[in-house]
């Protein structure tokens, strides 16, 4: 991975939220201030034209990273270096309905980023571009006259994609773009996203909790747990040789459609609260390999493992780094 081609570099990124009880309660009930570290020392970079995926369970900080990268939240610490045109960064959300203005016709929705990016574009040019974009995502130009509620979930996600493309993006942040869709519809949207990437050289920060989807889409995968990246590897390596015990457990939850109805022992325990994460390695209460050191010391810097990094004492010694 050479530095010159990185379009995004994220360095020691941190985002804290104040989740204290209201001031009066704190005084009366003598409750301390409480801080939640939603993102806690995250590093990664994305190469131009590639897809980096963030995976992890609910609340591990994926959407917060998306919001930090797109500038919807300011970081509490750390740096985000974007070597592209900020105006050409777009976002696609999980819920295609909530993110589309219900009172606007599809044509106006899709045209909006175009009008923002190039104010003063003649209306005829805008209309032609909208028709073209709707065709690109597999809808019909006539759909420009309809309202979002007249579309199915998959079609609405196509509208979101058309809108994102209208901003002539080079970089797309996609937060669970297919999680609300049925698999047959998901396949349509994922194929569309891959085609657009090939044809337009787009770069994706792709967020998902679904490892099969991530394997299909990503060049590099970062696995998150409680606000931290615990492992990052090129996709094929991560699946062939997962290094972090949490990654291994996650991989084990993927249903095997070739061998249905197998017996297996599911991962025990639950994701702890990010307000009071366990001391040491935050995964240690659920980790089958945990030893004394894990309970007191945090596996700080990711140990380098070929093209990837892993934050785990056991993996570190196994890899002999």
């Amino acid at each position, binding site marked *: 991975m050479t530095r010159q081609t990185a379009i995004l570099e994220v360095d020691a990124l941190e985002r804290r939220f104040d989740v204290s009880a209201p001031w009066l309660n704190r005084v009366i009930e003598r409750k301390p201030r409480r801080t939640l570290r939603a993102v806690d020392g995250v590093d990664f970079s994305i190469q131009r034209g590639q897809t980096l995926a963030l995976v992890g369970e609910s609340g591990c900080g994926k959407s917060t990273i998306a919001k930090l990268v797109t500038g919807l939240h300011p970081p509490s610490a750390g740096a985000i270096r974007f070597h592209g045109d900020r105006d050409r960064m777009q976002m696609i959300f999980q819920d295609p309905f909530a993110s589309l203005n219900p009172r606007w016709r599809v044509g106006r929705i899709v045209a909006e980023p175009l009008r923002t990016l190039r104010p003063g574009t003649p209306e005829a040019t805008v209309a032609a571009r909208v028709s073209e974009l709707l065709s690109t995502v597999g809808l019909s130009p006539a759909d420009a006259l309809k309202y979002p509620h007249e579309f199915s979930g998959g079609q609405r996600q196509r509208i979101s994609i058309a809108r994102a493309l209208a901003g002539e993006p080079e970089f797309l942040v996609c937060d669970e773009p297919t999680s609300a869709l049925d*698999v047959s519809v998901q396949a349509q949207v994922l194929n569309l996203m891959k085609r657009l990437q090939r044809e337009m050289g787009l770069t994706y920060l792709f967020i998902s*909790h679904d490892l*099969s989807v991530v394997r299909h889409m990503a060049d590099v995968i970062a696995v998150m747990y409680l606000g931290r990246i615990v492992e990052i590897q090129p996709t094929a390596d991560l699946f062939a040789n997962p290094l972090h015990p949490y990654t291994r457990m996650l991989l084990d939850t993927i*249903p095997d459609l070739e061998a249905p*109805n197998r017996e297996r022992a599911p991962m025990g325990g*639950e994701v702890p609260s990010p307000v009071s994460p366990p001391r040491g390695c935050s995964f240690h209460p659920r980790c089958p390999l945990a030893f004394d050191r894990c309970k007191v010391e945090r596996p700080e810097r990711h140990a380098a493992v070929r093209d990837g990094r892993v934050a785990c004492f056991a993996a570190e010694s196994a890899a002999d780094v």
Partner: protein
Amino acid sequence: MTDTVLDVRNLRVEFPTRKGVLRAVDDISLTIRRGEILGVVGESGAGKSMTGMAILGLLEPPGRIAGGQILLSGERIDTLGEKGLQRVRGRRIGAIFQDPLTSLNPLFRVGDQLVETIRQHTDLGKAQARARAIGLMREVGIPAVEERIDNYPHQFSGGMRQRIVIALALCAEPELIIADEPTTALDVSIQAQITALLKRLCRERGTAVMLVTHDMGVIAETADRVAVMYAGRLAEVGPVEDVVRRPQHPYTAGLMGSIPSLRSDAEDLRMIPGSMPRLDAIPSGCAFNPRCDLAGPRCRRDVPRIAGTGAACWLPLAGSTALTEGETA
């Protein structure tokens, strides 16, 4: 077969609307045996939940059962009326829904809710019911039960709440459990815990389970047999290995192909073109015909049906034996 717990015959559910009668469930026949998990799978709007709600007698008016029969251990329950159904629900049929908070009262301690449900359905005294509640909580995997039994629902995580709902559903030792998307709101690692729990309980207690979900992965991990629904109708029914690995219905095959596989490195996923029709625009003949590569004239004219096991398709893909017949039983 004395083993048959649930026997649904030619069930039809309809919603009268201003635009005409919508048929949400169209001629569905299913059986589930003791200790068996039947997965009911299909995309959103296929009629899975309506089938479950009809069995539970919980259809919201104007929705109604417009045809067919529902038998529980050989006894008709679709004709019982609300009074009779209330005795069946909870006692003989347990229900688990996607959002555990629909089954739990936020204002009461979970232990009290379990005790009340147990006493409602059995002759146990208060102390015995509490002992049973503790046993059930332990059985569904709540750690430190004695400490947690007097907590309120909001003090539990989503996965723990769903465990408590499963305990509630088990209170009266029902013959049948209907679980509608029980893991959809949960994280993948918690999902695996809940499906493993359902599987174990069903096996140990001989409970029949109808597991409704849109997630083929959950079905593949959990179900013994699978029923695939499309546009209110059954597309295919069979043992999980057959349906998942050797689907006979072109729709099932398309569905399986559209799931990203861990064993494939194909650049593109297989797609089924188009989308499922709305209830007011079901095509004539086979409901899947506008999306089907194989469709012929007969597909556009006559509705294919399933008798027992197999695919509701005039031109089934090579699988095992396809038992289709032209006319409804």
